């Protein structure tokens, strides 16, 4: 009995979904109640909308408040095709079969997303939300004012479908059901592929995702298209279902918000959350609309009460249930599971050796002559501040080069310019004989530049293993559909985690790690790129001495295997013992480059950074 209850508890979500689907499938067979049929049809439509919205806003984190635009586009595509191109007469009294036009509606919606996506997805946060609203209103106004094509405010009437009368709305019912299943299947597939993992990475930290090789522009636009097509298809069916469409109901901002509410209620970023949310919300909407009058007297539930009710519900969900039903329920079970794993958190570090991976393509090609990385006269200004003011620097192949200098001297900004997080105002950056300063960050990652951040940046909602598997050392369309965590890559990730001593934490959430542990995982993460150049931003900052020793050991070992390092660090004993050459930056310029001994003796360096008494302190340490 308890076992059965436990099973039910663990799989409550799955059981609920299976029950829901089965009920929808057989409902028309066991009951011919038209009222409930209508409720299910509208719930299915909302679920399709919610499931689509979830891809762009739940997975990729780009919140759209204008998702109904694709419903409108789909509906108008079907309506205009059916009336304008074929003409109402052609179908005569029999009317038209709506299903010819569904694929066209889906394609047109997808094309709109493909055209608009690359433009509006260059912005983030507030700007993106506002742009999606603007897109919706602009489309509404175009449809409203382009009266030759759309009859504007008067709307379009569609012919009745040509199936037997006694079928009623059943074909609509099952076609919506089919579209929903396709939409959910696609969400499920996306979530378990590299594409889906890339989207989650973008949601968690987009710049970081780009720096580990995720082709963020393509991922985002594909997600936008994926979120539009099924809604477009549903729009085509919806037009025939209503048999009359007009711009205000088809491009309705309130319905957009209703979609958002459905997903937030069910659980953003989950597969079934949007569906469950829709099947709670739409029946609630219909019942309150139609039955309250009957129960409590006429006029109780008018348009105003409806606005107040759903507006307030939206606010309540944001304030009190921000993560939605499914994640909140899952959390309860996860907490129980994780309490068992807690024992391992205090485990000691145990490093394992690393096998050298053949850099097939790179090895085969003759390495170009000259330094691995060359920076020529690079500048970066922020308003009036010249953070990097004409830096020239070369990193020799196979070296461990240090970049030191006082705070604010431009070290991290230089890193950002090299890996492409920021673009430089002037100068050139060459890597492996190729000019890279115009390339997107993910392209530079593909070429073999890996970098860690001063304050570790991991994808906090992902597990440690997923974090290490997420980097992509190249882009290919086929890759997008590959399993997110697959055999050889997972093996390599485990090996890398072993190398940094974090293999016992593979299934922990990255957000739960300590600062030092995070640094190790981030190192393993960029090793997944098989980088030729690793840039470490303060690898020893804020971690304990034992870990610093580990870090030094690992850097030496990787360097022996052929990896070049560029390291920003304030820990002078570590820098002077590990690195050669050392390059000193001050006020955005390189003031000295040379061996550790030479740099320590340079008066300009002592003046700008180390301080006059640096040598004395060193001597004092030796004598004590």
């Amino acid at each position: 009995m308890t076992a059965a209850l436990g099973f039910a508890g663990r799989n409550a979500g799955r059981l609920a979904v299976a029950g829901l689907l089965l009920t929808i499938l057989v409902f028309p067979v066991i009951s011919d109640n038209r009222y409930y049929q209508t409720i299910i049809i509208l719930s299915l439509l909302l679920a399709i909308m919610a499931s689509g919205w979830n891809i762009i806003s739940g997975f990729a984190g780009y919140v759209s408040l204008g998702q109904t635009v694709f419903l409108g586009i789909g509906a108008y595509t079907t309506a205009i095709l059916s009336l304008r191109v074929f003409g109402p007469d052609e179908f005569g009294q029999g009317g038209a079969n709506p299903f010819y036009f569904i694929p066209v509606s889906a394609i047109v919606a997808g094309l709109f997303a493909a055209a608009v996506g690359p433009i509006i997805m260059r912005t983030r946060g507030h700007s993106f939300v506002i742009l999606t609203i603007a897109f919706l209103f602009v489309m509404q106004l175009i449809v409203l004012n382009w009266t030759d094509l759309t009859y504007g405010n008067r709307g379009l009437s569609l012919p009745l479908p040509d199936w037997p009368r006694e079928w009623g709305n059943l074909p609509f019912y099952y076609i919506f059901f089919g579209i929903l299943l396709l939409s959910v299947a696609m969400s499920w597939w996306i979530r378990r592929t590299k594409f889906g993992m890339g989207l989650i990475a973008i949601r968690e930290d987009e710049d970081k995702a780009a720096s580990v090789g995720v082709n963020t522009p393509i991922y985002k636009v594909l997600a936008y298209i994926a979120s539009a097509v099924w809604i477009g298809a549903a729009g085509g069916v919806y037009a025939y279902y209503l048999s009359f469409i007009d711009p205000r109901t088809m491009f309705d901002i309130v319905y957009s918000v209703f979609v958002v509410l459905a997903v937030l209620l069910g659980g953003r970023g989950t597969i079934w959350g949007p569906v469950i949310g829709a099947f709670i919300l739409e029946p609630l909407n219909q019942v309150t609309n139609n039955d309250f009058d009957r129960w409590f007297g006429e006029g109780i539930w008018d348009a105003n009460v409806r606005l107040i009710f759903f507006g307030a519900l939206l606010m309540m969900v944001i304030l009190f249930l921000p993560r939605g039903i499914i994640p909140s329920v899952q959390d309860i079970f996860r907490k129980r599971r994780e309490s068992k794993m807690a024992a391992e958190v205090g485990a000691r570090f145990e490093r394992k050796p690393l096998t050298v991976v053949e850099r097939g393509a790179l090895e085969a090609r003759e390495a170009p002559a000259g330094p691995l990385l060359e920076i020529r006269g690079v500048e970066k200004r922020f308003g009036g501040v010249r953070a990097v003011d004409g830096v020239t620097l070369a990193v020799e192949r196979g070296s461990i080069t240090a970049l030191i200098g006082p705070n604010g001297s431009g070290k991290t900004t230089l890193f950002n310019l090299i890996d492409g997080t920021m673009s430089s105002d002037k100068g050139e950056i060459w890597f492996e004989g190729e000019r890279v300063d115009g390339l997107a960050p993910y392209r530079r990652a593909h070429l073999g530049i890996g970098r860690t951040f001063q304050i570790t940046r991991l994808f906090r909602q992902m597990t440690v293993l997923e974090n290490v598997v997420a980097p992509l050392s190249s882009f290919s369309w086929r890759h997008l559909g590959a399993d997110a965590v697959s055999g050889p890559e997972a093996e390599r990730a485990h090996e890398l985690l072993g190398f940094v001593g974090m293999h016992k934490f593979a299934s922990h959430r990255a957000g739960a790690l300590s600062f030092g542990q995070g640094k190790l995982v981030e190192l393993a993460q960029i090793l997944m790129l098989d980088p030729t150049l690793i840039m470490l931003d303060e690898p020893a900052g804020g971690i304990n001495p034992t870990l610093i020793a580990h870090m030094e050991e690992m850097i030496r070992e990787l360097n022996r295997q052929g990896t070049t390092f560029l390291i920003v660090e304030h820990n002078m004993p570590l820098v002077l013992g590990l690195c050669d050459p050392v390059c000193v930056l001050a006020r955005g310029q390189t003031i000295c480059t040379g061996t550790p001994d030479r740099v320590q003796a340079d008066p300009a360096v002592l003046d700008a950074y180390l301080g006059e008494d640096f040598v004395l302190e060193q001597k004092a340490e030796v004598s004590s």
Partner: protein
Amino acid sequence: MTQLIQTLVLGLLLGGVYALLASGLTLIFGVMDVINVAQGALIILAAFITWALWNETGLDPLFGVFVTTPLMFLVGLLIYMTTIRWIQGKPPSTSVILTFGLALVIEGVMGMVWTATLHRATPDYFNQSFTIGDIYLRKSQVYGCAIAIGVLVILYVMLKVTWLGRAIRAVSANMSSAKLVGVDPTTVAALTFAIGVATTGAGGSIAAVLYPFLPGSHYAWISRILGIIVLGGMGSLPGAVIGALLLGVAETMTATYISPQWATMVPWAVIMLVLLLRPQGLMGQKLREDVAL
């Protein structure tokens, strides 16, 4: 020629009122990083209150400013304490969705109280005009613009001179540093939000005379003031003024020379173009963001 000047003057007069209406939105965004989508609904709420006062007591709608401003200040304080306060620091979309919900609630309440029909406060002078040469200036627009400028000047001086103003600007520039020097960000945020909403009081009273309105009009207003602050640079008060004047002129020009139907498109078109081509707007500053990481 006369028509051009007439259109320009009308655009500028409207722009002055728009500037006041947009100032609250930009102030709230600058300090709290919150886009208050309910600002449009609050404008209509103030307009309805003004209309009701005028209708019941005969109080001149433009004098309604003195009632609606403190009233809306309190409404703002209430909204902050019950909702906005709890979502500070959440992703930007959260505040947009939350305040959208609030806008729907306010729209519903207004529909219940005043029904969804067109209203307009029409005091004696609303149909009268000043005439300068061939140019007609509606008295209501002239008075409205004058009051709007007056309130804006008071707001500007307050931000520049008082301790609260300095605190608001400090929090707007850098929240954590402001905390270090003894500014309590919650208090400042609450007062900023309340002041931002209070501007809808004055603005709504003026709007009640200028345009007919119904509960659903808030979409037109939010699009307008959002377009203004995006154009001017989000968070910048001088930017809002310039953006408002430009948008006022653009709207009247479109209505006169193209068609009134396309005038509603202007704010949305402005929003799209500015966000895509110059996201920081005309007066917004582009600051480095990497240091905070």
